[in-house]
């Protein structure tokens, strides 16, 4: 009985569990034939980075909320708010995991550190109090939102020169469209989390400035590293 209860409580945190969900990938092309010309090495290198860093970021986000949930799940008011955001992050993480394996991207080699660091950061801020947890969310989502916007800018500006093999015109392949669409939706959801955090008194956290600025610094460093290694 006790062990079953423990197992259930564990299951709730086992957010990497892959259920029989729908596909997170763009549809396969007809006859598996390519529709567009080759991407340039720079474009491929960029997509490589984008998916690696986004996967690492969503892994981090998932585990931050897991840590906060573990620390704050006794609070009846905060529990459903964190749970809702956490579930969205799980979806984001699964999507980028699928994209990473589909496009054969190397995951960040620092993944074990991201796991420990993110869970630790979520748990530590949640353990301080609810406001600190929300300030952590605010800082993280600010950095992520900006970063997603930057990626969208590059994806819409620097991928215009690829010829469609069917009609000879330059346009985005379904792959690029799907990636842009995914990032757009995720960015909006991350910014929604930012609003949620502000509405739930993130500004009352003490020390607010130190907490948010140091977490922002950590996030920016992590982004820089996850893009590269």
């Amino acid at each position, binding site marked *: 009985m006790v062990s079953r209860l*423990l197992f259930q*409580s*564990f299951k709730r*945190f086992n957010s990497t569990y892959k259920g029989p969900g729908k596909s997170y990938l*763009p549809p*396969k*092309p007809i006859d*598996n034939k*390519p*529709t*567009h*010309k*080759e*991407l340039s*090495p720079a474009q*491929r*290198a960029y*997509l*490589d980075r984008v*998916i690696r860093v986004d*996967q690492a970021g969503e*892994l981090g986000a998932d585990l931050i909320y897991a840590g906060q949930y*573990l*620390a704050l799940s*006794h609070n009846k008011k905060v529990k459903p708010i964190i749970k809702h955001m956490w579930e969205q992050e799980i979806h984001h993480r699964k999507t980028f*995991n699928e994209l*990473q*394996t*589909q*496009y*054969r*991207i*190397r*995951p960040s*080699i620092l*993944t*074990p550190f991201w*796991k420990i660091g993110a869970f630790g950061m979520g748990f530590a801020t949640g353990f301080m109090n609810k406001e600190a947890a929300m300030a952590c969310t605010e800082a993280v989502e600010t950095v992520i939102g900006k970063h997603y916007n930057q990626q969208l800018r590059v994806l819409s500006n620097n991928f215009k020169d*690829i010829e469609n*093999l069917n009609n000879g015109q330059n346009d985005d*392949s*379904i*792959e*690029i469209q799907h990636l842009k669409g995914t990032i757009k939706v995720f960015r909006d959801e991350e910014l929604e989390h930012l609003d949620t955090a502000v509405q739930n008194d993130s500004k009352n956290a003490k020390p607010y400035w130190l907490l948010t600025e140091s977490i922002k610094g950590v996030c920016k460093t992590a982004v820089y590293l996850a893009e590269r290694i």
Partner: protein
Amino acid sequence: MSMKGMINRGIKGIRQFHSIYHVNPTIIDLNKIENQILNKAYEEYVPKYGFNKKSIELASKEFGINGGGIFNFTSNSKDVKMELCLFHLKKCRDELNKLAQSEEFREIMGNNNSKEIDRLRSLIKYRLSLNKKIINELPGLLGYVLINKDRLIESMKELHELSDDLTYYSGDKSNDFAWYSKRISVSGLIIQSELFMINDKSKGFEDTFKFVDSKLKEIETAGYIYNSIEEWIFFNAVSIVNLLKSQLSRG
């Protein structure tokens, strides 16, 4: 060469972003004259003369080019023998790619009963059996590509590409550090098996394939142990926190 230069050269050319909707770069581009020469040398002269300058020179002659001078401009190594050795490795990778694209292989992939490790096993054995036709030249080839620092970088890059292909075709879906451990284990396994193969006198290289089986079993066990430990630690950490919280809330 500086450390940074070495790393750059090592990383440059490693496959990035395998596209589904875009044309992907080919492993061997046979439109290029240097690859045509290498292909001719590999198919016609290597069985007779081995991985040597002579094979390249004879092949070049047929294209009306004197010697292997063209490789000074087309290759990193500027070394015709090295290019010929690398060509063998790339050619084998190309064969693997063709196998993975074939209908039969896709059927096996679609079949839920086949396990990833079994697919990996048969792919590795297929790759090793591609060495059969050059088995007499294999010791020389391995010695040559592994012995010098610059050549080692090039051949390690190729080895990484091979182990990446093998794990991908076998249906690998790892998202974290397991991605690296799998590929490193496969790379190690390939090198060990090829060294084993050199001295293997058994019929049809049965002993080499037995060696692969036992090594793969070790890798599988190691992965299982790692995952179990990670799960156990996480389970206990969460339980302890929940236990503490329940005790504290009782006051």
